[in-house]
């Protein structure tokens, strides 16, 4: 039972980490607190569902469509909704507040479209729902695949941000947006690309989630909350922080559900969230700025 809990905890945690990395990009670099983030995830989940059930396209191939679509959507949303807010914002704090209000509205647009299109029922599809035996416990193959995909996307993003000049420039904007233009970085363009990249990751997360979970048009909020908790717990804008906090959250939730009571998972989530913030107010890997 221990190994089983550990494995499903890793699957859940990997998904949280994947989803949170996108949000931390959007918040850390573009300074947009995207409350419609969970809806972007669920939209991608529905997209994967439609592609699977009507076109017979398996979700892994579906990623090739969903991720670029998410990226493009993020790029357009930033251009249409955020650029005017950025232009009028006096400082980053006021941009944050404006973006919260704007994306709160966007949340209901996304949700409304999904409710009209798909209704309010629980949706799921059966893909790779075959048992696999790992370390003596059985696990659905789609969960194993979900974990692998989370690792691939997380690793890819990490390499992109640390090993390429372009990625280093994005991190520089997160660290010191005031100084970034001095080395020739167009901060607005970097923010737009980071927002688009974050939306692409939300889409990836949505497809991965749809492979092994049921979802409804209104379950986006849950993912926004979880992603937000992971981002804050790990330290805003910190990729490694999001990764470890995501895994911790997934493991804790699964262990509490397995050994104590499934009804206590949410309580456990907020307990460790509180504990981490009391211990390290800037998050696990965050640094308090002066």
């Amino acid at each position, binding site marked *: 039972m221990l190994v089983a809990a550990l494995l499903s905890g890793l699957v859940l945690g990997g998904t949280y980490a994947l989803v949170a990395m996108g949000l931390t990009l959007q918040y850390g670099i573009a300074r947009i607190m995207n409350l419609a983030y969970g809806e972007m995830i669920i939209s991608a989940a529905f997209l994967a569902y439609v592609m699977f059930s009507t076109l017979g396209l398996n979700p892994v191939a579906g990623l090739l469509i969903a991720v670029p679509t998410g990226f493009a959507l993020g790029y357009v949303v930033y251009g249409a909704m955020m650029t005017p807010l950025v232009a009028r914002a006096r400082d980053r704090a006021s941009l944050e507040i404006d973006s919260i209000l704007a994306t709160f509205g966007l949340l209901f647009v996304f949700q409304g479209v999904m409710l009209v299109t798909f209704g309010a029922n629980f949706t799921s599809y059966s893909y790779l729902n075959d048992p696999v035996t790992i370390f003596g416990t059985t696990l659905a193959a789609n969960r194993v695949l979900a974990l692998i995909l989370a690792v691939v996307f997380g690793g890819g993003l990490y390499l992109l941000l640390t090993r390429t*000049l372009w990625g280093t*420039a994005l991190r*520089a904007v997160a660290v010191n947006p005031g100084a970034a*233009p*001095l080395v*020739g970085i167009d901060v607005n363009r970097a923010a737009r690309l980071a927002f688009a990249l974050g939306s692409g990751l939300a889409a990836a997360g949505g497809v991965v989630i749809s492979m092994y979970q049921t979802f409804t048009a209104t379950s986006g909020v849950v993912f926004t909350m979880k992603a937000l908790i992971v981002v804050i717990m790990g330290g805003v804008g910190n990729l490694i922080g999001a990764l470890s906090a995501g895994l911790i959250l997934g493991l804790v939730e699964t262990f509490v559900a397995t050994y104590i009571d499934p009804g206590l998972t949410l309580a456990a989530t907020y307990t460790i969230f509180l504990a981490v913030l009391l211990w390290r107010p800037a998050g696990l890997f965050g640094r308090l700025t002066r």
Partner: protein
Amino acid sequence: MLEVADLSLHYGRHVALNRVSIRVGKGETVVILGANGAGKSSLLKSIAGLTKPDEGAIVSFDRRVVTGMPAHQVVEAGIALVPEGRGVFGDLTVEENLALGAYARRARADANDSREFVYDLFPKLKERRAQYVNTMSGGEQQMVAIGRALMSKPQLLMLDEPSLGLAPLVVGELFKSLGRIRERGLALLIVEQNVKMSLSIADRGYLAEAGRIGGENTASALMGDAAVQRAFLGAPR
């Protein structure tokens, strides 16, 4: 090479700069002297594109008008600024800071040569290239800031109070390095409170007071100027 004419700037009702005109020739080292609040930093920021000057200003560089250009384009034109407080990327390593210095398109192809020069100029940075910048001393961070600016292959390097908060010994080394940068043929525009040091490496100087340029002369003449001595060098009145 750099021509600034009629540059004014106001923050709300406060006039920071009032029709300032200066010029810096090719390979020339120019220093701007003046008390706090004379508008020296505002002038450098306006040239670098970090703040927008009022209508009517003309900033041209290499016969190209750069007035009102956003900062990231000014860098591409060949002007680099080491801002007051250094503006380094503290959570990144020395190596990453320098690599970003060559982010501008004009600098990318020659990034390796530029890095060689920076490491030669500041051997300490080579030793500490994997270190996070926010764990370094003020003097070392200033080296990172100057090195990063040099990575963009500027023709004009502007420095805003480079010696601020540094120990006297470190300041001496810093100006020695600036001398070597100057020998490379770069033009330097320096705003500095350490008047003696900056005049010693400068060709020319401007006196700034209350948002205006009050005077201009060669560095050696300014060094001997009684008014300058009274105001900045602590000579008896």
